[in-house]
């Protein structure tokens, strides 16, 4: 566990030395800020505040920026050759994979934390000004939405790490991750293209959106959704570890 922490800390620190991480944080704040502003303008005075609204688009943005965060994790080390010293250090391959994943997830959590500013704005508006038509912010769905998006992000990052383990080319790793995330996202709409209801349902069960948009985002914590995300994370990290181990046998 000690080495997991060391690896995770280095990865997290690495994000702060690379421009990509700042650009991602910047882009996410601009996009969610704009989205929040539109939502706010529409709601004030007519609809109850919805703190989770901004997280609906955050999930979509994640499809774009998660690959940017994960693509270099292992691909860069393999290409640069730094992997040789890492793999000859007394550290289990699984610890390296887990550490790198946790570093990325921690950074994701920090970016996610930036969006708490919108919740603070909601709270400030609804408690200080007390519009007659605007009830106070319902914190329940906000909390579940954050829990959901956090798990959702973990799953996308774990998949990204897996693709980063598979290739030495960062661009390919990023592109493959993004493609797969999109397919998993669009799986939610399987019903409109697949005739068989059972098949559509099966595809939908595998999609990322189905386990988030209709449950966590609207204030429902379903056991199966949490299991789905944790399962994706576990499976992806397991396969990534095997892939890393297989490097030794090539």
């Amino acid at each position, binding site marked *: 566990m000690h080495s997991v922490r*060391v690896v995770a800390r280095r990865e997290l620190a690495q994000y702060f030395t690379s421009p990509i991480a700042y650009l991602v944080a910047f882009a996410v704040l601009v996009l969610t800020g704009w989205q929040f502003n539109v939502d706010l303008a529409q709601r004030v005075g007519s609809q109850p505040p919805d703190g989770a609204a901004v997280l609906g688009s955050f999930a979509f943005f994640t499809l774009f920026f998660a690959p940017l965060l994960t693509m270099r994790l292992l691909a860069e080390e393999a290409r640069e050759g730094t992997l*040789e*010293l890492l793999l000859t250090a007394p550290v289990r391959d699984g610890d390296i994979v887990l550490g790198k994943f946790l570093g990325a997830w921690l950074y994701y959590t920090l970016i996610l934390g930036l969006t708490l500013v919108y919740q603070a704005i909601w709270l400030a508006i609804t408690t200080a000004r007390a519009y007659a038509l605007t009830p106070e912010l319902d914190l329940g769905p906000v909390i579940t939405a954050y829990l959901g998006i956090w798990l959702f992000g973990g799953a996308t990052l774990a998949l990204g790490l897996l693709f980063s383990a598979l290739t030495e080319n960062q661009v390919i790793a990023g592109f493959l991750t993004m493609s797969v995330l999109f397919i998993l996202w669009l799986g939610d709409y399987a019903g409109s293209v697949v005739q068989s209801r059972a098949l559509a349902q099966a595809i939908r069960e595998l999609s990322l959106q189905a386990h988030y948009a209709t449950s966590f985002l609207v204030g429902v914590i379903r056991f199966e959704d949490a299991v789905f995300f944790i399962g994706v994370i576990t499976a992806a990290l397991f396969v990534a570890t095997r892939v890393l181990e297989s490097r*030794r046998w090539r």
Partner: protein
Amino acid sequence: MIDVDRLTKRYGRFIALDSISFRADSGEIVGFLGPNGAGKTTTMRVLTGYMPPTEGTARIAGFDVLTDSLAVRERVGYLPETVRLYREMTVRGYLKFMGQLRGVDRLGARLDEVLDLVGLRERARRLVSSLSKGMQQRLGLAQAILHDPPVLILDEPTIGLDPHQVQELRALIRELGRTRTVLLSTHILTEAEQICDRVIIIDRGRIVAEDTPANLREGLARSSRLYVRVGVARDDVAGLLASVPGVTGVGPAADGFLLTSAPQAGDVRPAVASAIVGQGWPLLELRPWATTLEEIFLELTARLDAPVSDDGEARHA
């Protein structure tokens, strides 16, 4: 400390290591000598737990590289052939990371110590990417000795260093080798002569010779080679020299000839001298041909199939 037994490594059908065996004890500096692609790096990568062997076993301090990989990796300091470090980290930050990974005690003090040892103390806060190749090499070495390992595996440690640093590093390796086992690869022969207690010459995945540098030299010197310079330029000089009893080969060398003689023939110098003088030719020079490790190396790793090989490098050798 290092115990390699019939180690074989195949990449697909290509045999990189063909059943090599050797030992290296504590306090011993063993040099791995061989042309490019001979299997030096492969051996080192197996010993450091980077890749598993196809067959055979390798043990370090009694731990098998395959089944006790972590225990082996704890006890080995490794400097890879091309030192690749995290470029965006600071010198000290990088060493700290490696030290933490290896769980080094009293890391702060140890970092200062090692940085002093490799002469990077004043660059501790600089980024790795700003270091010259030689400095990165030294940082790589710092990383290898950080946890004070009993076994050091150094893949071409002096490459990319200036002559000054090379001397310093060799002295450092000799110093480190006093209490540790050091396995280093090189293709600089004087380096092997200078710092190694024992030399293993490896070629195309096989060990072709293994001895102290002095013994290797002597071994070849025993098949006594003589350098002869004769004061006339005649075509029949070579023929005459070849006809001297005991001489098994005549070849051109510098301005004269290089004679090889069978070991059992004893000293052939009197016979050679009298043969030349008997013809009335002036004998300018007759002396034993000092064998360098370089020659031994070339001889042992000679490419017999060189003319038919399509590998340009082989033909040069």
